[in-house]
């Protein structure tokens, strides 16, 4: 019962946050000084069609929040004929506007890039968790040993190191063995089959290693302290007294308990993982959402910026919710705060 309440509360909160993010996203680009949309629409680079489409999309001829005129003639529906409503309606249709830079549909651009970022983050995070958890367990087992101290020092350094700089260092060190950037060598296409995919893999190595090493030490430290803490608990002694061997004790008693803080940490660091991806993709020119955001910043491509931000924020919120659910599955003691 407790658990159910906890989950309901978390789902409710996630929904509220999503709504808040959607509103916030709109607010950000319209209200802040230097209304970008108005500036760009008068840019000579825009064709008449593009201008009309933008005007239509953003409903720039309409008021921002509330349409008093139309309210008087058409009632509530008229009153809601505003930029904000247009934004919401477009959102439900999956229409995120068009890019200022190349006039593509923002949602198309995002679709194209999403999986590239997912590969990178997915691979990097999974590896980081696996290696981090493993090393953490090892360090906890051999507490105080040189391995342990070495790992602690590594942890220290990776926390002080900005992600992008670590990427630059790796880039400089790898000199020649791995490609300097991009996802695929020029000329190769998916039709080339295995060669194509191997080439992608080749390009994937450095950016993934950057992410993996940085995040792995985070997970390693948490796992280590978590395992150390759990092993000192009374129920571990009980398990030993019951005649379980070390492996059984670890697998059936220590592991689950030690993983609890891990799940929380993974949830907490999801936002940072996204930030890390932005930096890594920029440094290695990996054509994902992160690099897209960087390019959009440089080109002042606000619709794209807005679209990417929304997508990233929504993803992180949902991922957090999933992590909360996972936590509830693991720990029956959870209660709504």
């Amino acid at each position, binding site marked *: 019962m407790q658990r159910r309440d906890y989950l309901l509360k978390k789902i409710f909160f996630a929904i509220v946050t999503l709504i808040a993010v959607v509103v916030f996203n709109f607010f950000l680009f319209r209200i802040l000084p230097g209304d970008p949309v108005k500036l760009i629409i008068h840019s000579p680079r825009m064709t008449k069609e593009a201008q009309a489409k933008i005007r239509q999309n953003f409903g720039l001829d309409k008021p921002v929040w509330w349409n008093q005129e139309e309210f008087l003639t058409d009632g509530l529906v008229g009153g809601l004929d505003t930029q904000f409503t247009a934004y919401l309606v477009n959102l439900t249709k999956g229409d995120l506007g068009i890019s200022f830079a190349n006039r593509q549909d923002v949602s198309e651009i995002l679709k194209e890039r999403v999986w590239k970022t997912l590969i990178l983050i997915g691979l990097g995070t999974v590896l980081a968790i696996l290696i981090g958890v493993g090393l953490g367990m090892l360090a906890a087992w051999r507490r105080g040993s040189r391995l342990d101290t070495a790992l602690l020092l590594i942890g220290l350094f990776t926390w002080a190191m900005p992600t992008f700089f670590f990427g630059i260092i790796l880039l400089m060190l790898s000199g020649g063995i791995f490609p300097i950037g991009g996802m695929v060598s020029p000329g190769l296409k998916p039709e080339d089959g295995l060669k194509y995919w191997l080439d992608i893999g080749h390009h994937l190595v450095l950016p993934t290693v950057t992410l993996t090493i940085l995040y792995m030490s985070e997970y390693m430290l948490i796992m280590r302290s978590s395992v150390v803490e759990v092993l000192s608990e009374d129920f571990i002694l009980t398990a030993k007294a019951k005649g379980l061997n070390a492996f059984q004790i670890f697998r059936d008693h220590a592991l689950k308990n030690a993983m609890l803080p891990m799940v929380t940490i993974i949830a907490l660091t999801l936002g940072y993982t996204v930030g890390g991806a932005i930096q890594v993709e920029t440094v290695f020119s990996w054509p994902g959402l992160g690099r897209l955001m960087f390019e959009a910043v440089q080109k002042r491509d606000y619709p794209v910026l807005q679209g990417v931000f929304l997508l990233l924020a929504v993803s992180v919120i949902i991922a957090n919710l999933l992590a909360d659910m996972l936590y509830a599955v*693991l720990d029956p003691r959870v209660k709504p705060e």
Partner: protein
Amino acid sequence: MNSLEVKNLSVEYLNEKGDHLIAVENLSFSIPQGKSLGLVGESGCGKTTVMLSLMRLLPEAGRITSGQVFLNGLDLMRISEKEIQKIRWKEIAMVFQGAMNALNPVRTVESQIVEALMVHEILSSKADATKRAGELLELVGIPSKRGKQYPFQFSGGMRQRAVIAMALSCSPKVLIADEPTTALDVMVQAQITDLLQRLQKEMNLSLVLVTHDLGVVAEICDDVLVMYGGVMAEHADSDSLFNRASHPYTQRLLQAFPDIANPGSKLASIPGVPPRLNALPPGCRFEPRCDLRIAGLCEKIQPPVIQISEGHSASCHLLARGDQHD
């Protein structure tokens, strides 16, 4: 037949500085099958260390320096880790101090009993083991369907009873209960004590009850072993101990308990503090706090174990000289 026989057990701990802290020295006792022994003493006198040593559950810093522990004839100190894993719980089980946290909080109570049953192959199917777990819970007064709940959903007393049920799941010959009633309120304490007594009789268990509460000992123990500073002070059957206590420490201990027949009498506490393990006196451990000490003897030489009568012994110089004290 003695189900448990401990001979000359000595245990020490190594601290960070490398000091050898002698927690238990030369302890010997035995328990016939079906009888109960109360192990009494102040906090830090070594009672828990003794119990952990029996099952070889000492923490890393602990070391058994000498002694033999015979469980139905088998010396537990001589067998391998693998062999003792088979014996733990099945032949000798333990109910820990502070059973609040003895149960894994993220697993159901039932599953933890099932685990004990299946690890020792008492039952081979999970369904059978689950059923048996339910029966065991009923045995200690917990409705079997509550087994599917988690420890945090049980009250303190219930958790203690669940832990007892779990300990008895493999029908061991010996059950050690380390301070089972501490941290429980008085009503619950009585329930637990009654439960232990009943189960002991029903299952013909040898029970070792570790406690600082003489009242509980008086109620359910056949024999009593009083420890002080890691050594035996006095060992006797219950009747002899309470009526003819011979060791000065035991006598003071008995005096320190409120007498319900004499409510107005002053509570006598024992002045001083227990000995520090890294500064143990060469002579009698109790000497600094003893008002019957013999100057020049007690602080220099450890007292020998004197047999006072059948099944009653104490380690005190006074007894050696034939001076009896009431």
